[in-house]
């Protein structure tokens, strides 16, 4: 809303220094977003919070400023109310449902001249950010901006029949609005109708046909109170937001309609240079107004704010804001004024008191409150450890949107079990991710484009999918690597690209850290290259997948190098993390024995390992593969492996003979089981 500081002075004698004014408004809760200069006058563009429709007028703002600076002069808004119950002509106002329209004040004025407004009025209208139209419409806008009551004025001669009906529209009816938009109506819209047709959408906008023009002679003035929810529904449906609808949606003052009409009449009179010919006046108040009463114990404001606030201060503030107080020894019965639709309970009253008393008077205290339920979140600890681990081995953490395009999601799900957004910000953001990999690929492409040659990324985040009709969210860790693993350097004179073995080894370090044994298993995933597509398993549980993305996908992101990715479920990893208790390490020395052999190339290393584990003598502690060769000088059906086996006892130093004996027996069994050829 636009606040004309000079116009405020109509009600309140306040220092108009810009900065002071801004701080003053801020301190009572009106946020000044911009200072605009209009014809040399200072105008503030202020943000009014949705709970304070009473601030959508200069008078309303002046009232709050006065309560803040109660020593300054404040001129209550005084208008001689036209208490005429004048029905000189045959006319009627009919409200179909009092829940939609609790009050409707209407007035007919005949024989007027519509002109352009004076330069002064035009400037005032402009200072409110509005456009001057004609002397009558401009008056309705001044009333709106002054006391916050929306007024609509019809050209009486354009209304047919001597009646105004406030009713729900009937399907099939339509209306051309003042902004020349034509709309079709239905039962959801509350309309103001003449005998036959809708003439205005109640509380939102008038119809073009019945609008006041320079030719208008006779007018019908409307000042009403409409149900906020009714207005909000129609306004949302129409996608229209007007100054009037903005106020009605938030709740206008049901008791101000008469006063507003009087204000309109008084201003029209000034422009007409003659007595007004008022031929009809009627105030249909269908629903009795019941003020809100709140019981406020006098010690409550101090208890709830944590500072000492004197009773006299609370009393003064509430009175200045228009509340009526009935003193009952240890409490007040507070009557809430009709324009404060936001005040319903004692906490609301405390806010009023502390808001005006000053938030700067609050103390800084720490509560002595202890959370008995406190538990450490294990997954958070795990995420912290994993994050630190992967950044220390060269991966960069990224954070992406959770939105992907339909196509991207389809890469990772052959079933269409992913979630879509009904109102996305664009096609590329229309589904919820069922994998974090598309985000990593976008980041990889961007960094390659910036001439970064090594892109290793990881992200923690949720993936979403539907299972048995229910929405599932899962915490995921995804990693990707592409480009150069080892950069060229002056000493070794070679560089090395990422390959599957490097990527897998880097990833598996996290399992080493947590002492978890994991396994890969060949499994064809639609997003991986056939020859490099694996399931990641711990025990027999599937926790994710690892592999090299297929060409179609990396082409989609315009990446021209292989991209290796792994994606695992965090909750499944955290289940396997055990709390290890201390074990003393073996203090005796190792003895190493090497063994080189040929093995059938179709035997996977996992198989060899399982046989080793099965046959391994008690004193063998570990083994490692230190060479692998295939090619010339050995049969095509074989590969050559060289392994080292480490022996030691927990109790003593083993003799050479003992070790040799054990090792030879072990090797013999191994050779027999797997048909190995010793080299």
């Amino acid at each position, binding site marked *: 809303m636009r606040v004309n500081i000079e116009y405020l002075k109509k009600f309140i004698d306040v220092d108009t220094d810009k900065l002071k004014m801004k701080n003053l408004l*801020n301190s009572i*809760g009106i*946020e000044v977003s911009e200072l605009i200069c209009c014809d040399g006058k200072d105008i503030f563009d202020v943000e009014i919070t*949705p*709970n304070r429709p009473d601030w959508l007028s200069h008078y309303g703002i002046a009232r709050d400023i006065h309560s803040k600076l109660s020593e300054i002069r404040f001129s209550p808004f005084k208008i001689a109310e036209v208490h005429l119950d004048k029905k000189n002509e045959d006319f009627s106002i009919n409200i179909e449902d009092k829940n939609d329209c609790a009050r409707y004040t209407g007035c007919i004025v005949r024989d007027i001249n519509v002109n352009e407004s004076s330069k002064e009025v035009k400037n005032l209208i402009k200072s409110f950010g509005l456009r001057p139209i004609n002397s009558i419409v401009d008056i309705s806008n001044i009333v709106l901006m002054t006391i916050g009551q929306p007024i609509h004025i019809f050209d009486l001669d354009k209304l047919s029949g001597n009646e105004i009906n406030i009713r729900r529209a009937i399907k099939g009816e339509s209306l051309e609005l003042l902004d020349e938009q034509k709309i079709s109506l239905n039962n959801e819209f509350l309309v103001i109708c003449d005998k036959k047709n809708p003439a205005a959408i109640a509380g939102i906008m008038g119809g073009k046909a019945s609008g006041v023009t320079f030719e208008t002679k006779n007018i019908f003035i409307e000042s009403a109170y409409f149900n906020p*929810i009714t207005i909000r529904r129609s306004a949302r449906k129409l996608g229209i937001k007007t100054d009037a609808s903005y106020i009605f*949606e938030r709740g206008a003052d049901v008791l101000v309609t008469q006063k507003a009409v009087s204000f309109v009449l008084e201003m029209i009179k000034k422009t007409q240079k003659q007595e007004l010919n008022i031929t009809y006046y009627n105030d249909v108040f269908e629903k009795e107004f019941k003020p809100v009463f709140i019981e406020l114990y006098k010690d409550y404001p101090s208890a*709830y*704010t*944590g500072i000492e606030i004197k009773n006299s201060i609370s009393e003064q503030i509430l009175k200045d804001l228009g509340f009526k107080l009935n003193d009952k020894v240890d409490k007040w019965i507070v009557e809430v004024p009709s324009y404060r639709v936001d005040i319903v*309970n004692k*906490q609301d009253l*405390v806010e009023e008191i*502390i*808001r005006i008393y000053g*938030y*700067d008077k*609050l*103390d*800084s*205290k*720490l*509560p002595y*409150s*202890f*959370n008995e*339920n406190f*538990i450490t979140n294990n*997954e958070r600890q795990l995420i*912290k450890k994993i994050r*630190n681990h*992967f*950044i220390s081995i*060269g*991966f*960069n*953490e990224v*954070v*992406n*949107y*959770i939105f992907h395009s339909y196509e991207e999601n389809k890469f990772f799900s052959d079933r269409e079990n992913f*979630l*879509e*957004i009904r*109102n996305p910000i664009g096609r590329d*953001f229309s589904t919820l991710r069922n994998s974090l990999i598309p*985000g990593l690929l*976008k980041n990889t492409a*961007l*960094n390659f484009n*910036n001439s*970064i040659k090594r892109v290793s*990324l990881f992200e923690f*985040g949720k993936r*979403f999918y539907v299972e048995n009709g229910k*929405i599932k*969210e899962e915490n995921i860790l995804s990693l990707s690597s592409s480009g150069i693993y080892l*950069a060229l*350097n002056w*000493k070794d004179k070679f560089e090395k690209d990422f390959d599957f073995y490097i990527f897998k080894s880097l990833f598996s370090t996290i399992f080493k850290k947590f002492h978890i044994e994991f396994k890969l298993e060949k499994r064809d995933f639609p997003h991986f290259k056939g020859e490099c597509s694996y399931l990641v398993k711990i025990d027999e549980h599937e926790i994710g997948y690892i592999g090299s993305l297929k060409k179609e996908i990396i082409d989609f992101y315009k990446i021209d190098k292989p991209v290796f990715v792994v994606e695992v479920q965090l909750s499944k990893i955290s289940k396997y993390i055990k709390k290890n208790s201390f074990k003393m390490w073996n203090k005796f020395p190792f003895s190493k024995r090497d063994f080189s052999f040929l093995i059938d190339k179709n035997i996977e290393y996992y198989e060899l390992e399982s046989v080793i584990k099965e046959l391994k003598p008690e004193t063998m502690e570990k083994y490692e593969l230190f060479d692998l060769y295939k090619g010339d000088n050995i049969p095509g059906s074989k590969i050559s492996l060289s392994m080292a086996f480490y022996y030691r006892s927990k109790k003593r130093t083993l003799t050479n003979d003992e070790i040799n004996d054990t090792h030879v027996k072990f090797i013999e069994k191994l050779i027999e089981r797997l048909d190995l050829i010793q080299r």
Partner: protein
Amino acid sequence: MIDELKKEIEKVRKDFLKEIDQVLSKENLKKLRDKYTSRKNGIVTEFMHNLKKLSKEYKPIAGKIINELKLNIENKFKEVEKSINSKVYKKVDYSLPDFDFSVGFSHILSDIGTEIEDIFLNLGYEIAYGFEVESEYNNFTALNIAEHHPARDEHDTFFIKDFENTILRTHTSPVQIRYMNEHKPPIKIISPGKVFRKDEPDATHTPVFNQVEGLLVDKNINFSHLKGTLESFIKSFFGGNIDLRFRPGYFPFTEPSAEVDISCVLCFGKDPDCKICKGTGWLEILGSGMVHPKVLLNCNINPEEYSGFAFGMGVERIAMLKYGIPDIRMFYDNDIRFLSQFG
């Protein structure tokens, strides 16, 4: 005859000097020694042998020249041997460029998030997580934002297709609702996480951003406790020289509500042209307030017995202020040139 010999000797000397200059190890030194001075077939030894064949007339002169060469070479050998044994050749040039091993960086949003969380952990708050896809009830209705409440306008909401009343949470407050429904006071939690609003990305908006919200519910909790808590957080996060300002604000789920400003972290209110605070000296950083009694009631907590406060802040905004980051979209580009600036 002598001239020829002189020439020959000169060539040997030159070749020797060239070769000895390339010797860096004991092994190569020995090879070179053998080549020139081995008793069997060293080059210099050969000359000595050939001396015998010369006529008496030339012998003394030639002998002198050859001896000179021999002495020269032997001295040089001694010199080089000495220097190989000394540390000069073992010296490393520490100033050579380092190998380009890869360095990883945690995302700045994780760092800031963790920093905020750690401060509240130290104050005894538990961290609670929830769901990013939420019900409209938990996100709005339970928080005193009824279906036709105008405040819903300010939360441009993403709706999930084919699921009734299902949305992406617009704040992490639904976590508080879930927690209050499952626990009895005292409650003392923070809820960090992603939230979603239907905003077109620009320098100050992204459809996804991160929040940390806090909630404390217990007996006799008052507005001054909220101020004290936020003050200790702000001073701990930004430094003790930062001031706090409470301003009246409005949130449907708190009453009274307060917007919290901090003094400008760049100019401390001293620069009228300050880019960050635009000369006001203050930066809006937090929304907060006393939990609305209706919200407590919705979670089966009696507002006559308990009261509480809640607050919320945007992680990106705090990071932008702390590090002077000009555009919120940078957090989501994941450009390594950006990520690698914040160790």
